[in-house]
């Protein structure tokens, strides 16, 4: 395939990934690596490099909108970014020593996990009582609910912090935002209301990804001619998705997209085990 056809085709697929990722809230980044590796036969290191750049673009683009609306908690985000950035550097080192097949298998497991938790019921309110560590770190906050401020408390900070290190490691190893793990750490461990955890997770993804980007760049994983169609496609798709979001019925789309993600996960594990990469 020549460069022009390749770029246009990759840009179109990335647009679709960004659109679906934004409509479903599952993020477009998670399907970019399997798409490039399985459909376009791109080496997995180039694929995770391009995916990571798309993740930074969509995260920063979406965070710009969320931060303005006052849902994200900048203190929770900043505090947990200590864990995710250390994890991201660790993960990026792991990516340089892990064989391609190993990366593919771990990736497959994460895809299936993301699909599995995407339709679970989530708590709209936080915990009743505050945790003393959360209070000392000033993590408790409030967010707008139909014009009024509703306050919430944060709990089990050390557990959330530990899980965030794991989320950062996966982000650096696989070139994804690992929004699913971040949201789980905030929802389940720290009991942050889901509107706050979703937007704060998005806010953190760009900084986490930037921590592995330097290592990817110096190892030659960031190929400009591949990053160009992927990043522009995903970014445009996610911006269009954000505009459509108000009108679209997202539940059925989310179920279909979750099935696609799970199927890609199975395919990644299978390809990893049989050594097709």
């Amino acid at each position: 395939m020549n460069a022009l056809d390749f770029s246009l085709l990759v840009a179109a697929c990335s647009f679709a990934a960004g659109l679906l990722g934004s409509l479903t809230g599952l993020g477009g980044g998670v399907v970019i690596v399997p798409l490039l590796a399985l459909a376009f036969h791109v080496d997995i290191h180039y694929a995770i490099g391009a995916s990571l750049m798309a993740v930074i673009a969509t995260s920063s683009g979406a965070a710009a909108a969320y931060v303005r609306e006052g849902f994200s908690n900048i203190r929770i985000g900043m505090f947990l970014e200590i864990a995710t950035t250390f994890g991201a550097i660790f993960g990026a080192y792991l990516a340089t020593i892990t064989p391609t097949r190993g990366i593919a298998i771990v990736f497959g497991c994460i895809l299936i996990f993301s699909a599995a938790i995407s339709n679970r019921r989530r708590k709209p309110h936080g915990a009743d009582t505050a945790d003393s560590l959360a209070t000392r770190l000033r993590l408790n906050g409030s967010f707008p609910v139909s014009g009024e401020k509703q306050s919430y408390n944060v709990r089990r900070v050390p557990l959330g912090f530990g899980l965030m290190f794991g989320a950062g490691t996966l982000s650096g190893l696989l070139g994804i935002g690992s929004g699913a793990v971040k949201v789980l750490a905030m929802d389940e461990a720290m009991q942050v209301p889901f509107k706050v955890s979703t937007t704060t997770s998005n806010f953190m993804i760009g900084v986490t990804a930037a921590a592995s980007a330097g290592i990817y760049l110096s190892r030659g994983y960031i190929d400009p001619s591949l990053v160009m169609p992927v990043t522009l496609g995903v970014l445009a798709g996610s911006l269009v998705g954000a505009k459509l979001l108000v009108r679209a019925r997202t539940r059925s789309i989310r179920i279909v997209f979750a099935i696609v993600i799970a199927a890609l996960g199975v395919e990644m594990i299978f390809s990893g085990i049989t050594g097709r990469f």
Partner: protein
Amino acid sequence: MPNSMPKAAPNPSRRPAADDAQLDIRISLLLRTGVLTSAFVILAGGILYLLRHAHDATHYKTFHGVPPHLHSLSGIVTAALHGDSLAIIQFGILLLIATPVARVVFSVVAFLLERDFLYVVISTIVLLVLLYSLIWH
């Protein structure tokens, strides 16, 4: 009128909400500007690349690593100034990576102005980790 009107919040550890909103809006603007600028540079470099190399064969199947001059800031800037289309795209990518980093720098300054020293320390730690990865690595 007694001058004991809302002077300080009941809990001194909490900031007034107005500061939060101001900070949020500035961060939002910073992120948007960074992403749009980098997307524009990547697009410009990409168009230039495709005009010159439309019929080249692609080479992503096996990993060779990107040429070394596209690994470092100085190499990228030098090549971009010579009109190398891949280096222009790579420069746009650097702007993209710099956007969340700039957000952290901005947070350090904002927390400093608010005299929230705990969060000055926390955001400085995050900044140092990012700089380690981007510069000293």
